[in-house]
């Protein structure tokens, strides 16, 4: 089984402001229009089939106001930092077949997400394209099990060409062409990640550098054509949560 980088989720208070700021900071362009359920995303291709989804959860505002509190992701993004509250909310790895995904789900004590027939359970684009995916580990609601916060989950996409990494961005001045992820600064240790991935050494299969801090993505280094490498640095959500015990489930 080959485990690949799939994407990073970057939570933002305002995905429009965050995308504009990232463009100014790095020259990396983005796509607009993707959404699923209560989340809208701006997609930032990083080259080599990997992307960042800058995600804004909590649509509608009415649904958010009625949502049970405290809310893990909201509280993390509510924590001020030098990036207007941006936090890496997830790292998602990819496998090439549903069978491999099921194997991972089983190994981690759960399963895979159902292939929801309702298209609104999957990412939609304005052009009508529905980007179906399934992920693992999935734990049935009420099972009492959840993924350890800050550990990556795994995705399977039946349609590779439809992925955001392969779609064009908005044209803007001073864009840079990304050529792929060079390294990832991750919290925790090599041993923790290797155990999660069930491999002898995690940094042999993915370009991890472990900083021993709170679990989650701390920085992503992206190569570009005709320019210096870009380092996108944001704290993971875990780093900004004061008391994890007050939150009920993984978000």
């Amino acid at each position: 089984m080959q485990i690949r980088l799939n994407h990073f989720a970057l939570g933002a208070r305002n995905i429009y402001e965050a995308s504009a700021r990232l463009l100014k900071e790095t020259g990396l362009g983005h796509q607009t229009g993707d959404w699923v359920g209560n989340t809208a995303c701006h997609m930032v291709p990083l080259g080599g089939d990997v992307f960042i989804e800058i995600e804004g959860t909590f649509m509608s505002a009415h649904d958010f106001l009625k949502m049970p509190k405290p809310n893990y992701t909201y509280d993390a993004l509510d924590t001020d930092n030098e990036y207007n509250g941006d936090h890496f909310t997830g790292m998602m790895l990819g496998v090439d077949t549903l069978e491999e995904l099921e194997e991972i789900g089983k190994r981690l004590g759960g399963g895979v997400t159902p292939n929801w027939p309702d298209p609104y359970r999957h990412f939609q684009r304005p052009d009508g394209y529905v980007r179906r995916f399934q992920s693992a580990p999935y734990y049935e609601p009420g099972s009492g099990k959840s993924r350890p916060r800050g550990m990556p989950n795994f995705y399977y996409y039946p349609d590779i060409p439809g992925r955001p990494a392969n779609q064009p961005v908005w044209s803007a001045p001073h864009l840079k062409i990304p050529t792929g992820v060079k390294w990832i600064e991750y919290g925790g240790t090599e041993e923790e990640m290797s155990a999660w991935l069930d491999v002898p050494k995690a940094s042999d299969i993915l370009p991890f550098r472990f900083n021993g801090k709170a679990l989650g993505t701390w920085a992503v280094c992206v190569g570009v054509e005709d320019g210096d490498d870009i380092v996108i640095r944001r704290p993971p959500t875990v780093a900004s949560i004061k008391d994890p015990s007050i939150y009920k489930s993984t978000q």
Partner: protein
Amino acid sequence: MAAVVDHFHMGSANIYTSIDKLQKELRLGHYDGGFMSNVVIGHKAFPLNAGVYIEVEAVIDPFAVPAGQEPAFQKKAELFGTEVWTGVCLRVDTMAEMEDIAKRVGGKVNPHPSMRIRPDGPLNKSISCPQIPGGKPNFELGLPQWYCWEDRMYRHPSGMPTVPMQGLRKPNGTEWIEMGGDEGTMGKWLGQDPKTLGMRFNGKKPGLYAIGIRTDGGVIELRRPSANQDTLDG
């Protein structure tokens, strides 16, 4: 009201290689404008913001062009081995102004609007003047023509989005325009001071020779032969 610059016209023998060359030289964004309703001419554009753009045209169906009737710009582009400037086009806001201009120079408003079919379907329509009976085409005389866009500049070519590309500059109109001929003749034709359009004159054969494009990286010069030149030397 004084006219303003609307667009610059460039003729090419191969629209794809021309655009490739121009975008690398200018580092400005472009888009596919579709084709003209005569089905012969293909169109791509470089929006320069500030209501101004460059359009590059080339024959895209040579079989539809009777032998010997290729556009003059194509013959010159083939002869010189490069794109050629055909001319400058100005803009006024109302058809009443167009009528006044056409009358002043002894012609009329072109009864046939210029129609371009965009890749996404809608027609892009503009009206030009003057059409002077028995006269040479204005471009061949090195003289600008005027355009009026319908519907409050709906979908004006200068405001359309471009293909995403690495390292594009942000343009903001033109700083200067280098014309052949002389200021006096041009001023008489325009009915306004050529300096109001940023024109300066090189004394060569009448025509367009170069433009200075304002960008966030300074003014960049785009120089090509005029389609009115007989040889590359003038």
